[in-house]
């Protein structure tokens, strides 16, 4: 039948059934009102016959049942009234209702009377309950039976001879209550399981769905048991749990087993689970192989994890119960037993176990390693894990100790940690590596031994090493940069104050980054270089303490190291960066007093300038950096210094654009005048430079005049400022006439018709003139120089 038509059909069936039910209920009430018990019972029987239907799905049957349930409450009230009044005795009623024609209505009525019977206390509760639970066996149809027994459970709930209840006493003990509930549970489970085998084979899925709808009816019994006062830990341990587990295992039904195990864990207190761990866990391997045990086991471990942190008094119980050992072997057994469990399932189990262990035994690093080791075992023999669910779980597994311990050293000390990471494919390794780096940065952890650095960089090799995989090319450029920049930042966290060890660390780091290939070196080389330079400084500070010989050897080693490291950039190629780094090293060597080393670095910088810098903008920056560095150096003897300054000035004059040439050349003037006490103060060479720069400025003027622009005026004003600078510093070669000439030249240019007005140049000139005026008026030693200047 077409589903819609079937559904419509069912709906009609329900509506019809409801109609008839209400119809009979109406007459039943009329009979009750006129105290006509016989008729009332007859109508009741007819009403309850609606529940004999086989045409409704459980979902719809439930509606019918609920209506009948409501009606029966009124019947029960009537029974209570009548027995109190003495019109009928309970035993009479018990007898009378059995006249109902069909067994199902008969049993519903019997249960209803039974409730009254127990309340009246004319018979011991246990006897009535026993009777009823046995009689319900008469209904073997699953759906009808389940609802009938559910009815029995509902109405008996408040009448169980629990400890402290009014129905306890004499022969009635809580054991009877437990026995009753257990029996009802067992029978209900059997009925529920039987549903699986009913109906045509093709409708298996439908049956599964229908069974799911009814599962809470069965589970309710467990809930009732958990609520009984009399079910304390001992009772649970001795009687309740073993009986429940017996049924669960014996029913051999996948759906029932999964649901009921889940139910047990959720319904009974965690404290009980802890104390019955062995019993509970022993059931797992006995379950059907298709049961998804891992979710149940994970649920158990997670609940116990939460229980552990709920209060500090709880932890010792865990130790006493040897929870870890039991769970550990249970996990192992389950994985052994379920051969087909996918790897993601296996890892999920270990994640739950690890989380549990981190909470209960945070100090037992050996347990963590054990768990990781078990994972390694399961993963070995397989190629790199590619299943995304599994990789997600492995990432969760590896992240858990990081979050807990904050200090990555703990994770690094677990021998199995890197082994687990080995099984990740490259993409997942990168994900995990990023997590590791984040952890280090967030917690500001320093990794302070070369060994640990080595382990760490090996761990995160997905980010550090170049691989052949095409994945490298596919990576988004922005992402790649971010990735490599995080590695660069990490390098600064790899340090220690012990100089020997620090050198080992940077050597180790370099070893790893050299495997990164040209794309990564531009990011990773600078931090290594600066770490080395910092180490050098550190050594310099210690200079006084250590005997000079040893120290300088290590200094030389570091400079060698620096040289080799920067050389690696030629494979990228990255000449601009290399030039800058060479200049840094040159200055550092200068500070250590190592003339040849410094000279060598400057040579390398010049070579790069000559051979690799074609772009004129790049050249301008580079030459200023060279001049600026050279200007600060005092370690050179005359010959070396001459060679270098000559080269610098030469290149300055050869820059492409005239203004750039001019500026670079006058910058060179500072190479010959150092303001420090013992600094070179070669006035003539300074003047030579300035004159050369002035010639270039003039040439620029010629070129601009043909175009009618006036940019060169600024150059002249700059020259003027430079002349003034050296005048102030006391360079005897600077004459006031040269300055006057310049001032006149500038004035002429500004006022000239050929050039367009340049407000910024005018402002520059004005402020320069004000500067002169200021110093003239101020007088003093500086003012003396200005005496000659006429404005």
């Amino acid at each position: 039948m077409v589903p819609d038509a079937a559904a419509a059909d069912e709906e009609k069936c329900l509506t019809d059934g409801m109609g008839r039910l209400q119809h009979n209920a109406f007459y039943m009430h009329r009979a009750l009102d006129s105290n006509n018990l016989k008729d009332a019972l007859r109508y009741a029987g007819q009403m309850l016959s609606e529940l004999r239907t086989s045409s409704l799905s459980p979902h719809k049957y439930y509606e019918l049942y609920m209506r009948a349930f409501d009606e029966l409450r009124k019947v029960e009230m009537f029974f209570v009234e009548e027995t109190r009044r003495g019109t009928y005795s309970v035993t009479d009623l018990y007898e009378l209702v059995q006249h109902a024609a069909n067994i199902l209505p008969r049993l519903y009525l019997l249960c209803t009377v039974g409730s009254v019977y127990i309340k009246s206390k004319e018979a011991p509760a246990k006897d009535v309950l026993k009777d009823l639970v046995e009689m319900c066996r008469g209904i073997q149809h699953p759906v009808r039976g389940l609802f009938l027994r559910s009815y029995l459970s509902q109405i008996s709930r408040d009448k169980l001879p629990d400890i402290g209840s009014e129905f306890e006493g004499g022969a009635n003990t809580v054991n009877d209550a437990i026995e009753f509930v257990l029996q009802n549970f067992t029978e209900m489970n059997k009925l529920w399981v039987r549903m699986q085998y009913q109906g045509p084979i093709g409708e298996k899925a439908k049956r599964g769905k229908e069974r799911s709808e009814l599962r809470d009816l069965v589970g309710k019994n467990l809930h009732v048991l958990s609520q009984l006062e009399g079910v304390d830990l001992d009772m649970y341990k001795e009687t309740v749990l073993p009986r429940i587990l017996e049924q669960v295992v014996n029913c051999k039904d996948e759906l029932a087993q999964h649901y009921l195990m889940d139910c047990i864990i959720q319904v009974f207190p965690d404290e009980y689970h802890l104390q019955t761990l062995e019993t509970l866990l022993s059931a797992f391997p006995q379950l059907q192989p298709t049961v998804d045990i891992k979710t149940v086991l994970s649920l158990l471990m997670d609940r116990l994890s939460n229980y552990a942190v709920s209060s500090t008094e709880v932890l010792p119980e865990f130790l006493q119960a040897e929870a870890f050992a039991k769970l550990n072997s249970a996990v192992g057994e389950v994985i052994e037993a379920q051969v087909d469990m996918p790897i993601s399932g296996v890892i999920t189990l270990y994640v739950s176990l690890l989380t549990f262990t981190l909470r209960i035994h945070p100090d037992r690093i050996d347990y963590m390693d054990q768990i990781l080791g078990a994972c390694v075992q399961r993963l070995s023999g397989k190629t790199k894990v590619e299943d995304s669910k599994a990789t997600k779980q492995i990432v969760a597994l590896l992240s858990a100790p990081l979050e807990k311990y904050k200090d990555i050293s703990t994770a690094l000390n677990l021998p199995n940690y890197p082994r687990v990471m080995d099984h990740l494919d490259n993409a997942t390794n990168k994900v995990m590596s990023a997590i590791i780096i984040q952890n280090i940065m967030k917690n500001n952890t320093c990794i302070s031994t070369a060994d640990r650095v080595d382990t760490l960089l090996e761990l995160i090799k997905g980010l550090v090493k170049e691989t052949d995989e095409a994945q490298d090319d596919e990576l988004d450029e922005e992402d790649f940069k971010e990735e490599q920049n995080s590695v660069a930042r990490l390098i600064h966290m790899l340090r220690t104050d012990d100089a020997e060890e620090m050198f080992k660390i940077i050597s180790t780091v370099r070893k790893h980054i050299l495997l990164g290939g040209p794309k990564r070196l531009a990011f990773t080389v600078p931090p290594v270089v600066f770490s080395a330079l910092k180490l050098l400084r550190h050594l310099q500070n210690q200079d006084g303490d250590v005997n000079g010989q040893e120290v300088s050897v290590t200094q030389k080693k570091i400079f060698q190291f620096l040289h080799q490291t920067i050389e690696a950039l030629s494979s990228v190629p990255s000449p601009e960066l290399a030039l800058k780094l060479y200049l840094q090293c040159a200055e550092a060597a200068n500070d250590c007093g190592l003339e040849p080393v410094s000279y060598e670095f400057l040579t390398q910088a010049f070579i790069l300038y000559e051979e690799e810098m074609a772009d004129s903008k790049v050249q301008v920056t580079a030459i200023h950096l060279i001049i600026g560095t050279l200007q600060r150096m005092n370690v050179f003897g005359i010959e070396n210094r001459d060679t270098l300054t000559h080269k610098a000035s030469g290149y300055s004059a050869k820059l492409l654009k005239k203004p750039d040439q001019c500026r670079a050349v006058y910058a060179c003037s500072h190479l010959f005048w150092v303001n420090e006490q013992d600094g070179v103060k070669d006035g003539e060479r300074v003047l030579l430079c300035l004159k050369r720069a002035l010639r270039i400025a003039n040439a620029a003027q010629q070129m601009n005049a043909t175009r009618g622009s006036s940019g060169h005026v600024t150059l002249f004003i700059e020259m003027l400022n430079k002349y003034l600078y050296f005048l102030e510093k006391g360079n005897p070669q600077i004459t006031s006439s040269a300055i006057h000439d310049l001032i006149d030249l500038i004035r002429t240019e500004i006022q000239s018709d050929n050039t367009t007005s340049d407000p910024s140049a005018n402002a520059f000139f004005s402020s320069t003139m004000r500067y002169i005026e200021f110093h003239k008026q101020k007088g003093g030693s500086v003012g003396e120089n200005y005496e000659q200047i006429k404005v």
Partner: protein
Amino acid sequence: MVLVLAIGDLHIPHRAPDLPAKFKSMLVPGKIQHILCTGNLCIKEVHDYLKSLSPDLHITRGEYDEDVRYPENKTLSIGQFKLGLCHGHQIVPWGDLDSLAMLQRQLDIDILVTGHTHQFKAYKHEGGVIINPGSATGAYSSMTYDVNPSFVLMDIDGLRVVVYVYELIDGEVKVDKIDFKKTATTQSAH
């Protein structure tokens, strides 16, 4: 009251992993009107971070900056003051106040913010004020030994600017302040 943050030479990630935590907690978005950054960030992430602190961000190029499009120098007006920004590696001798003063005259500004030396300086001369906020991360410098992380906050109010310098010394943030007043007679010939 206009707050201007002067900051630079972070050298992330070449020479330092990040800004000091104490600085980060002080630099809260929405409180600062302008940021003048001397350069050498060096990467986009730092740019984005500064941008999050204040929408009006000005950066000049440092020699290690990843983004080569930053200008060599920049001028802007804030209130009554004309400010200029330049990293400083272009001015030889590096850190030389007289040479920097020449740049100041050239740009016709009251306050020149510059960096490169990683050493805090606030220097008043006849033409105005030169401020070097130092290195915000305490990054290595060939020119300065023992660099303490530092940055500068300027409070511009009318003709007065109060310069607050924040330095991280031995794990503690120390603040110092310097007052500068602009004389109304400092006019440029326009």
